[in-house]
């Protein structure tokens, strides 16, 4: 079944949402009150690693599983990396 890989990723995603508590109303409420680092840590590390992963995929021009070049929803303007780091640290940093 060609959708099996999507079902697997979805099941893993669902478990991850619960186990990370990212799906919890309480965690989101707490985040907007700046009373815990938890959600910022999740989003920050996800974006940091995600950005590294995407950069590597672009650098090595990786193909997807059906051997087509990977497409990205590419806009012309790119966020300067420094701005992203500054925003994150300015937001949650000491």
């Amino acid at each position, binding site marked *: 079944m060609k*959708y099996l890989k*999507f*079902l*697997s*990723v*979805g*099941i*893993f*995603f*669902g478990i*991850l*949402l*619960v*186990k*990370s*508590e*990212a*799906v*919890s*109303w*309480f*965690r*989101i*409420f*707490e985040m*907007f*009150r700046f*009373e*815990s680092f938890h*959600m*910022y*840590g*999740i*989003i*920050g*590390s*996800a*974006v*940091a*690693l*995600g*950005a590294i*992963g*995407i950069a590597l*995929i672009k650098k090595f021009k*990786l193909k*997807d*599983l*059906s051997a087509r070049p*990977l*497409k*990205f*929803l590419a*806009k012309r*303007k*790119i*966020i300067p*990396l420094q701005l*992203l780091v500054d*925003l994150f640290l300015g937001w949650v940093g000491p």
Partner: protein
Amino acid sequence: MDFILDPWPWYVSGPLFALVMLSLTVFGKNFGMSSNLRTLCAIGGAGKWASFFKFDIKAQKWNLVVVLGAVIGGYLGSHFLQNQPDIAISASTVEALQQMGFQNPGASILPPELFSLDALAEPKTWAILIIGGFLVGFGTRYAGGCTSGHAISGLSNLQVPSLVAVIGFFIGGLIMTHLILPQLF
């Protein structure tokens, strides 16, 4: 097994969210949950009223399968993979919620005051859920994405529109948490 049954710390969860996004990328797709709302409207026949909903539904089937998986995974995670359902929110958050009238903040994933069947006895709960649902549906389509599509996928790809959207989500969340919710409870 405790490392699976206990809540996962952020430095484990965050990288795993990146892994989910990168897996879908390698499958030749984009990680984004809210585009499914558009697909569901299209399946419901919304194309009759707005051309926005006229598109190739079949091409989006994979994403509905991801959501189906997420529902199954959420059920498995909350019923079989948890030592206890407590969410360890900070003491000051608990105090703030108690002052608003929430009975046991953090004792479950979601507050029963908003998301239990009993809460549906109150017309206020219906209003909050329906208006909230409409705003999520309209807002994510107007912005072209939600937390998964813009914050995780978009920011990872260094997209300026995603940064603007995420800042917008955050301002909205702050307004809801600090100005509107205290009026409702």
